[in-house]
């Protein structure tokens, strides 16, 4: 090959790099490992965690049928590129079209994009989009949104010099209506109000009310969910008057993987589609008039529009979007609805068990997946966490980690994956009075 090229050595191929630019020594990396070595090193991951996990907090695991992981191992899915060449990528394109159809219908909106990175960035992009649409410099964000989403919003919106006003949650764990009213009375420059429902504590918020207030103030309503199964149980975001609906699909991608990759879901109506970030697939026909799929409305995107693009997003989360589509199709509409109902009932069941064990529940309105248990203080809470760990149970997470002013409140997720026995056991541990034993 070198002869063909007309060079005498590999080194000569790099002669366009000035010698003073070259690294002086080989990379200081550890010695290479064989496949066998690596498999040995990774043996620790061979088995599913031996702990029963009641952690949710924006990352609730759900059941994944076996065929999903098998299907995703098809190299046609994972070793292909973004489907810019439509004729060589009809598989991915059609799957994205199906994904857009499923996601938009779950949200009750007209159109969904081909995915964002995760729920946090989807919500952030929704706020940025609202500012593009309404051209007003302030947005309102409810503090019962996942705290890490709030932090993401803060990073991006500060960078974009957009003003963010926060609405607190009240002692029922729901957004403070009075405070929102006051903000809207004082401020006239609001582009959007963002809310999560079920919120971080698992409570459903009054989105209809927020949407009404937003409309009266010429602002868009943005609603978010961190667990997409809620969308098939509760009145749809679209029906509640939400303009931009976003969500996280992590629980339905076949693994938690330390929280990533999940998939960001993003939907709105067609009137706003030209301000939407991210890729879209549309149906069209070929030269023989046969139906097919292409990437479309790309003039919103960075590779065409450059500095005037709606977002800088290029690579998105396509494979996890496919995993989401497949998982939801595996359940079917009937099965997905049943999964959501099962989750709702599990939470009710858990609360019954807590009552039996005299464990107070903090927030009492409609719950989904999450329950907040009041353990009085961090001391007791940490003891309970330890007690549970001894029995190979991860009981949940303290809300203090996210809201320093809260004390002794444990956030616990129950889903279709938890058996009644496991739920009972957790309730007993939480109820067990340490001192009297």
């Amino acid at each position, binding site marked *: 090959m070198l002869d063909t090229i007309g060079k005498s050595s*590999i080194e000569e191929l790099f002669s366009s790099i000035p010698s003073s630019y070259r690294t002086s020594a080989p990379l200081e990396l550890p010695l*290479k490992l064989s496949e066998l070595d690596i498999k040995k090193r990774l043996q*620790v991951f061979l088995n599913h965690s031996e702990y029963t996990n009641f952690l949710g907090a924006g990352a609730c695991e759900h059941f994944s049928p076996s065929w999903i992981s098998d299907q995703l191992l098809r190299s046609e899915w994972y070793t292909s*590129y973004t489907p810019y060449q439509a004729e060589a990528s009809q598989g991915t394109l059609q799957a994205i079209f199906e994904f857009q159809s499923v996601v938009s219908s779950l949200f009750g909106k007209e159109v969904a994009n081909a995915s964002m990175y995760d729920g946090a960035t989807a919500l952030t992009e929704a706020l940025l989009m609202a500012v593009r649409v309404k051209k007003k410099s302030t947005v309102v964000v409810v503090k019962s949104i996942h705290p890490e989403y709030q932090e993401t919003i803060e990073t991006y919106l500060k*960078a974009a010099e957009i003003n963010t006003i926060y609405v607190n949650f009240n002692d029922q764990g729901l957004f403070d209506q009075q405070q929102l009213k006051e903000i809207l009375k004082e401020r006239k420059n609001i582009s959007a109000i963002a809310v999560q429902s079920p919120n971080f504590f698992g409570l459903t918020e009054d989105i209809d009310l927020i949407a009404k207030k937003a409309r009266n103030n010429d602002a868009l309503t943005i609603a978010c969910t961190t667990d997409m199964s809620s969308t098939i149980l509760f009145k749809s975001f679209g029906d509640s008057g939400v303009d931009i609906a976003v969500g996280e699909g992590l629980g339905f991608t076949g693994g938690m993987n330390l929280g990533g*990759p999940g998939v960001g879901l993003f939907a709105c109506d067609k009137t706003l*589609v030209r301000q939407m970030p991210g890729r879209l697939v549309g149906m069209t026909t070929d030269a023989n008039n046969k139906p097919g799929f292409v990437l479309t409305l790309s003039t919103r995107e960075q590779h065409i529009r450059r500095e005037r693009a709606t977002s800088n997003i290029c690579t998105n989360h396509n494979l996890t979007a496919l995993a989401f589509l497949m998982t939801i199709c595996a359940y079917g509409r009937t099965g997905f609805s049943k999964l959501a109902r099962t989750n709702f009932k599990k939470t009710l069941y858990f609360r019954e068990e807590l009552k039996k064990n005299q464990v107070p529940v903090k927030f009492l309105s409609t719950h989904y997946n999450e329950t907040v248990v009041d353990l009085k203080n961090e001391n007791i809470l940490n003891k309970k966490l330890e007690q549970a760990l001894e029995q190979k149970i991860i009981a949940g997470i303290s809300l203090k980690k996210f809201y320093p002013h809260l004390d002794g409140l444990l956030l616990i997720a129950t889903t279709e994956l938890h058996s009644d026995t496991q739920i009972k056991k957790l309730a007993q541990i939480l109820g067990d009075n340490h001192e009297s034993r």
Partner: protein
Amino acid sequence: MSHDEKLVFYRHSENEAGVDFSHEDDFYHLDDTLLEQKLGDNLRKDLDQVDIPDLTEPSAVRHFTRLSKKNFSIDSESYPLGSCTMKYNPKLHEWAARLPGINSLHPYMPDHLLQEALKIYYELQNYLSIIGGFHKTSLNPSAGAQGEFSGLLMIKKALEDRKEKRSKILVPKSAHGTNPATASFFSYTVESIAMGSDGRILIDEVRRHMDAQCVGLMITNPNTLGIFESEQKEIAEIIHERGGYIYGDGANLNALMGKVKPGEIGVDVMHFNLHKTMTTPHGGGGPGCGAIGASKELAPYLPSPQVDFKDNKYFIKYNNKKSIGRIRSFLGNFGMIIRAWIYIRSLGAQGLTAASEIAVLNTNYMKKKLAHEFNLPYHTDCLHEVVFDDRSFAINNITALDIAKRLIDYGIHPPTMYFPLIVKGALMIEPTETESLLDLDYMINAFLSIAQEIKSTPELVKNAPHTTSLKRLDEAKAARKPVLTYKDLLKE
């Protein structure tokens, strides 16, 4: 064989759900009537509007398997897509990423249950710092574009700490679209820097544009023509002298591993594309990981959280004081991080360097063999990718698009077309180190026979592809009247 596979919704058969949940529970005394009572108006009532088909497992599997067969992929086709570094994705990585002990890791588990995963995370942070010549690396960004956002925000904060606010940024004309798109997020005026006839940034242009109002320069090296910016150090000096910073777009790092450390030639902050250089699979458009490395000066500004090591324990470090903050939920795409870690451990220092060497060798071999028939807009030596154009076929009325589509008939994924924008009718080829000599020769012969076809039977090329189940698709129609969902289709 390729089927006309209808949309999955046509497979719907009411109540034929393929999944059921545990039958062992006794909580069913909480029946649906109670649930509906409790939810009242909050219950979703328009389930018929939810477009999810009820499917049996065989029906679902057949659908998706058939769809998959309509894709070109690295495992079955050569994929010389310039700037995308479509190298082979080893199966060991896929095995590892799917291990139950990784799939079941929740980001909020107690640290002592996460030690093994955090160790890998920590090590990859360090490996990337070593490869890029940086002080510290963050694995938070989900993709290159998010790395760009983070990097420019770090620079903005560093300037703010110096009580400075600057209003413009320099971006070479050949840059990826994400560069100006990211810059405009910060409302910076993007000043395009022209390239010289050798395909390199004109240093005088940098000198002319760089002033106290300018944040700095976004640079891709080797640039999108595959040409090494051999005056980068001098360019960096100009930028740094006037208080600016260099952002490195690491999309083309596959040319340089073990050869050049960007951090040593003036780059202050750079994103790595793990889904390119470190061969985490591209997945038909992600997920990726756009890890960013930073110089000692900018490292404190890296996004949070990071993984650190102290007292023999790995831990997640939130709220770093000077950090730009959080840019997404949780820690990043660990599924990609584990794969990249394996890649680097499998190849080691020598292997990574060899990967870059073979990638450059393969490209130059193709360049030499194709240069007789395909026009080279720039004759400067190239590294891991080469850009041709369609100029010599203008008399036959054949464009880069036609050539790209005809390659599909030869079972080759088309190169990147019409990019970089500075080359009219560009065909950007990056074979990577993956291609064997046999596959390279096959690709070369395909290009050369297309060049012959253009002269002898141009219609064959003009109307390509011929072997796919669909002919060329009407993109204009798709945009004119967008059909974006199944519901849209039903309304047609």
